[in-house]
């Protein structure tokens, strides 16, 4: 069997990522030139840590975008005669190399890591965004109103935080949970994950609509069109995630919100676990900011509570929140990996990093090469995000 040398493997891999290098070579210098006009993002180009963090994050972002061009084979394609092929072995028919070798079903490890980046980079940021909206829309009133609202919400948040994460995952992600309808009333049938999705999506919708209404209350000609568009979007989103019904199919288009039940489950579980953390941070920031003069000014002006919260307090809390968002995407990635490692995540064949790490680690004694690339991929992505968070924190301290 033909075999590439280590040098050829490195060169070949660098070559496969050509689109990624081109994209980075365009984006980063251009951003550097315009860094003074790009706000917080531009400030990241001020130090070495920021550069490295941005480079790693862009690398994985563009890898996810161009996955179809970079990967050599489909994620599930098996080459039965080349099980456990060593890194650098050439595929016998097409002659395409297995850069990182093949796993126990003869699937290309390199391609699977590339395809896996797509899954990880969709779910982790999306779950973080939802967790942030949930945490913000509950943390703002808790900090602003205080009293009973605060006590009830804080108690609930601490309850979730005290919960052993793994138990929660095992109980929420078991396949049987999806089939059990806890709400069964006429045509409304919902399982626990769907109910949770409904609540989370509903909170997101309420958050967006309240933002619009409080901002443009006195300008109905702007408010009405915006409100209509947003309501339609929210309705589509809620029915899509909670009722598994994508309204685009009615128009004859391909469904966009086509979540696998597995994906919905882990999405909900991850949001559920990370939103109390966001809640605590937002609550703390709100407690601090609500004593400022500009908040008092807005209150004297006669603005409503929600206007003050969403348009006076929230924008002034953005610095720490952005830093936390970076850290939290990384933490979510680690959580997703842990879910995959316990076999609770997506389907067992899924190329996402956690599942592949689990697959590879079960057979470490037989062959080490299938487990290492996804593990290093996950680590480098989290490292990039943590470096970004660190650089952002330093930049915001400078002001």
């Amino acid at each position, binding site marked *: 069997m033909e075999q590439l040398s280590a040098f050829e493997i490195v060169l070949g891999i660098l070559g496969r990522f050509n689109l990624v290098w081109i994209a980075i070579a365009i984006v980063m210098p251009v951003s550097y030139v315009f860094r003074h006009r790009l706000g917080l993002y531009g400030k990241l180009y001020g130090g070495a*840590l920021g550069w490295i963090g941005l480079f790693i994050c862009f690398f994985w972002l563009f890898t996810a975008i161009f996955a179809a061009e970079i990967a050599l084979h489909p994620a599930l394609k098996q080459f039965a005669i080349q099980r456990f092929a060593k890194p650098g072995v050439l595929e016998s028919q097409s002659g395409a190399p297995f850069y990182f070798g093949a796993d126990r079903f003869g699937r290309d490890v390199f391609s699977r890591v590339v395809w896996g980046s797509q899954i990880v980079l969709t779910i982790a940021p999306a779950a973080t965004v939802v967790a942030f909206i949930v945490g913000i829309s509950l943390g703002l009133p808790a900090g602003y109103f205080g009293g009973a609202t605060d006590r009830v919400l804080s*108690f609930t948040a*601490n*309850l979730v*935080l*005290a*919960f*052993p*994460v*793994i*138990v929660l995952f*095992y*109980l*929420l992600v*078991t*396949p*049987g*949970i999806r*089939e*059990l309808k806890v709400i069964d009333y006429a045509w409304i049938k919902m399982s626990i994950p769907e109910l949770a999705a409904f609540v989370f999506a509903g909170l997101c919708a309420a958050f967006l609509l309240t933002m619009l209404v409080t901002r443009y209350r006195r300008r109905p000609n702007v408010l009405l069109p915006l409100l209509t568009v947003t309501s339609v979007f929210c309705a589509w989103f809620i029915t899509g995630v909670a009722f598994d019904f994508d309204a685009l199919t009615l128009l004859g288009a391909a469904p966009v919100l086509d979540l696998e039940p597995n994906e919905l489950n882990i999405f909900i579980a991850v949001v559920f676990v990370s939103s109390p953390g966001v809640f605590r941070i937002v609550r703390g920031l709100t407690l601090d900011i609500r004593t400022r003069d500009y908040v008092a000014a807005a209150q004297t002006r006669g603005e409503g509570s929600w206007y003050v919260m969403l348009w006076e307090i929230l924008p002034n809390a953005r610095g720490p929140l952005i830093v936390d968002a970076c850290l939290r995407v*990384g933490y979510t990635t*680690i959580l997703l*990996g*842990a879910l995959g*490692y*316990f076999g609770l995540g997506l389907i067992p064949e899924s190329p996402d990093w*956690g599942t592949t*790490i*689990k697959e*590879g*680690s079960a057979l*470490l*004694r037989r062959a*080490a090469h299938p*487990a*290492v690339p996804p*593990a*290093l991929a*996950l*680590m480098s992505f*989290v*490292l990039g*995000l*943590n*470096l970004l968070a*660190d650089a952002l924190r330093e930049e915001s301290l400078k002001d």
Partner: protein
Amino acid sequence: MLKFLIGRLATMLLTMLCTTFIVFFLVNLEPNLVRLAKGQINSRASDAAVESWLDRNGYRAPLLERYGAWLGVWPRQPIYDERGRPTATARNCPVLEKPAYAGVLQGYLGCSTRYKEAVGPKILEGLKATGVLMFWVMIVMVPSALLIGVLAGMREGSRTDRGLSVFSILTTSTPEYVSGIVFTIIFASWLGVLNGSAATATTKGVSFYNFTLPVMTMALYGMGYIARMTRASMAEVMTSQYIRTARLKGLSFRLIVWRHALRNALIAPFTVIMLQFPWLLTGVVIVEVIFRYRGFGWMLVEAAGNNDIELLLACSTASVMVVLITQLISDVGYVFLNPRIRVQ
């Protein structure tokens, strides 16, 4: 202070009640019960057999009644076998002859369907094994994290600071299942100097050979966070007025760090180390699974995977208790360490 403590204890109790009830509710959902029954009879049991097993073992009684029985505020009903004699859910569990109060309040944690014995002694065994692991992790993690943090924060912005900060960021980005695999490959498969499995630690005792990898894996992930907190706190202390005074007085740098800075710089990391326990708990589960160490985390995964209701409840109670108690200790300890804070 006393009022604060009583209030906290009341909240803790309420939190425990809520969490155990949520776990109880989730494990008793129909699909989970069916999974449990099939695991106990066999995986291809008919619906009728499943139903009769669940009914005979008392899983069809109302949910609240059974939760009360588990707590010990409602009498627990005896279980009868096919011939009407009282028996237990699993082999080596105590047999209940007639209805009696037997729950957590009475000190009976129930019967494990996975291990076929009473939950109480089993979970103690697991907690003891995990305690040993945690002890060594703490011994390795805390001093090295504090050392890194103090060295980095001593001269903010220096080359040592940069290097150590990047190292701590690197460790916080390496979850246990990544470092565990990398270490196993390097030290067990490749160099062959350490054992990639800690299974022998419970039977033959802890040794350097079988325990280094799990301890190293766990300590590394938690270390970075504590080190960063220590660094921040140390850097803040080093810029404070009294340090400047000490320096102007002509004290040597070493003496300033040892006598003046360290004590105040280590208050914040104390809280962080305490709050680290809950986080370590998730890590314990992963590390014990990777290295096949039969401790609390391993038991938790077995219980969750087999829907072993009473063992899982005991595991959740134990871990929630650890979280709440460490939170309390960190709050109370902070007040004692930092005289500027007073509890209302």
